[in-house]
C-alpha cells in the first residue's frame, strides 16, 4: 500500500529523469558541441544564477501571470461557447471554417493583425494567447459534446431540467474528459504563444524575452535553462490538471 503510494508518486519523475540523463549523456559524449548544447549541469547553474542573481524568478512569474490570464479568458469564453456549438452540429459546421482557419494560422503571422487592433501593450500578448488557446479549447469542447452519448442529457431533460441546467450539469460533465484534454492543450499552447509573443512583440520581461536575448548573445546555457524552465512550467500547469482530473473525472472510461 505504502510502496504503491511511493511508486505512484515517483512514476512521473521517471520521464523527467530519463530525459535529463539522455541530455547529460549526449553532452557528455560530446555528440554535440557544448557551445551549441550545454550540459544539464551548465544549464542548472544558469538557472540557479538566474534565480539568485538575475531576475529569472520575476520573468517566470510574469510569464505565468500572462499565461494564466490568457488561459482564464480562453476557458471562460470558449468552454461555454464550445458547449453551445457542440450541442448543435449544424451550428458548429457553419462556424467550423473560421475555427479551423485560425487554428491553422501561425500565431506569429497574426501578430501584426493583433498589433493593429490592440496596440503594442500587454493586452496584445494576452489576447493572442487567449485566442490561440481558446480555439483549441472550443474545438475540443465542441467535439466532446458531439461525441458524448445523448442518453444522460435526455434523462435530465425528461426530469424537467432547463436547457441551461442540462448544459451545465450534464453536457459539460459528459464532455469533461475531452474538454480537459482541450484545456491541457490550451494551457500549454497559451504558454507557448505567450513565450513567442515575448520573443517577438516588444517585451522587456518574461521568459520569451530571456530566451531571445540569450540566443542573441549566444548564451546557450541561459537559453536552454530558460527553455527548460518554460517546459517545466508547462508540465507544472498540466500537473494541476492531472491532479484535478484524477480527483474529479473518476468516471472516465467507466
Amino acid at each position, binding site marked *: 500500500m505504502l510502496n504503491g503510494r511511493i511508486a505512484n508518486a515517483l512514476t512521473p519523475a521517471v520521464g523527467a529523469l530519463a530525459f535529463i540523463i539522455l541530455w547529460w549523456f549526449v553532452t557528455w559524449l560530446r555528440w554535440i*558541441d557544448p557551445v551549441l548544447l550545454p550540459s544539464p549541469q551548465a544549464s542548472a547553474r544558469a538557472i540557479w544564477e538566474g534565480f539568485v542573481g538575475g531576475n529569472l524568478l520575476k520573468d517566470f512569474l510574469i510569464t505565468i501571470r500572462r499565461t494564466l490570464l490568457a488561459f482564464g479568458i480562453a476557458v471562460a469564453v470558449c468552454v461555454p461557447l464550445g458547449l453551445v456549438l457542440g450541442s448543435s452540429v449544424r451550428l458548429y459546421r457553419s462556424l467550423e471554417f473560421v475555427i479551423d482557419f485560425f487554428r491553422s494560422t501561425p500565431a506569429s503571422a497574426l501578430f501584426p493583425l493583433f498589433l493593429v487592433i490592440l496596440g503594442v501593450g500587454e493586452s496584445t500578448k494576452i489576447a493572442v494567447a487567449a485566442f490561440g488557446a481558446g480555439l483549441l479549447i472550443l474545438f475540443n469542447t465542441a467535439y466532446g459534446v458531439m461525441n458524448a452519448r445523448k442518453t444522460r442529457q435526455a434523462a435530465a431533460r425528461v426530469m424537467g431540467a432547463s436547457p441551461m441546467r442540462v448544459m451545465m450539469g450534464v453536457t459539460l460533465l459528459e464532455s469533461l474528459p475531452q474538454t480537459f484534454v482541450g484545456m491541457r492543450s490550451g494551457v500549454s499552447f497559451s504558454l507557448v504563444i505567450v513565450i513567442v509573443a515575448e520573443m517577438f512583440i516588444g517585451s522587456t520581461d518574461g521568459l520569451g524575452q530571456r530566451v531571445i536575448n540569450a540566443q542573441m548573445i549566444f548564451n546557450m546555457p541561459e537559453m536552454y535553462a530558460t527553455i527548460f524552465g518554460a517546459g517545466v512550467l508547462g508540465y507544472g500547469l498540466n500537473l494541476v490538471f492531472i491532479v484535478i482530473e484524477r480527483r474529479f473525472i473518476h468516471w472516465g472510461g467507466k
Partner: protein
Amino acid sequence: QEKVKMGLFIASSAMPYFIAKERGYFAAENLDVEGIPLATHPLIVQGLVKGDLDAASNLLSLEGANINALRPNTLQYFSLNCQNVKHQVEAYVVPASNTSIKTLADLKGKRIMSAPGPGNLFVAKGVLKAAGLDEKDYSMQEQQMSVHMGALQGGQFDAAYTLEPIVSMMVAQGIGRKLEGGLIAKYMLGRPDACAVLAGGAMSVKFMRERPQVAERLARAWAKALNDGNNDPKARDLLSKHMNTAAAVAPTVPLSYYSMIKDLKPAEIADFQNLVDQATANGLVKSKIDVKTMLKTY
C-alpha cells in the same frame, strides 16, 4: 565545382552574395555556392560552429565577437560592412507630421521603439546616451522590424530607431521623417566618417583550415562582388529581387560600404575594436576580445 554553403540573413547587407551569384563570380572561381537563408543570426552562428555552413554573407559583428569569445577560433570575418553618416543604414525616425521633435535631444520623455535584439537596443540607447539622454529620460521598447511602419503610423510610438530599408520606405510613403542617420559612427565612435561595423562576411575557421584554396577562391569572387556593390548602381536591382526591398526605394536606399579586410585602414579597425569593447562593457560580449584575431586577410 567545389560546393560551399553560405548562410544568409536576408537584408540588404547580403547583397554581395547575390551579386557574386548572379554575375557568375562564384562560377568563375569554379565554386557552387548555396545560399541558405536563416532568420536569426544565432542560427547562422550555430550552422558555422557545427559545420553545416562554411561561410556567412552578413553575420552580425557582435554575434561573431561573442562566439569567438566563447569558443576561440570559430570564425573569422573576411569582409566588413561599414556604416556611417555617409552610409546611413540606421536612423531615428519620427512621424512625418511631427514637427516638435527636431533633434535627438527632443526625444526626452518620448515613447521610442527600437529594432529588436540586444545588439540594436545597445546602439539605440548608446546613441541617445551620447546625445545626452539618460535611460530614464525615455521609454524604449523593441519591436519586430515588420511592425515598425504600422506602429509609427498608428501613433503608438513617438519615434523609432530603425534600419534600412524601413527608413526609406517610411519616408517614401510619407509615414515618417528621418530625424538623424549614421548615428553609431557619429555618436558612439565619435567621428561622422568612422566605420561602424555591424556585420560582415565570415568563414568558419574549420572551413578555412580544411579547404584553404576554396576559401581563397571564395574571397576572390567576394572581392569582385563588393566592388560592384560599392560602385555599380545597377547591382541594386538585386535588392528588390532577392532582399525584400520594395522596388520603389531600391534605387535610392542607402547601403553600407563593403570592404575586404586588406582594404581596411587601421583607424577603421580601431573603430571596430572600439564598438566591440563598448559592447563588451555592456555585457553583450562575454569577454574582451582583440578584433584582429577575428579578421582574415585575403
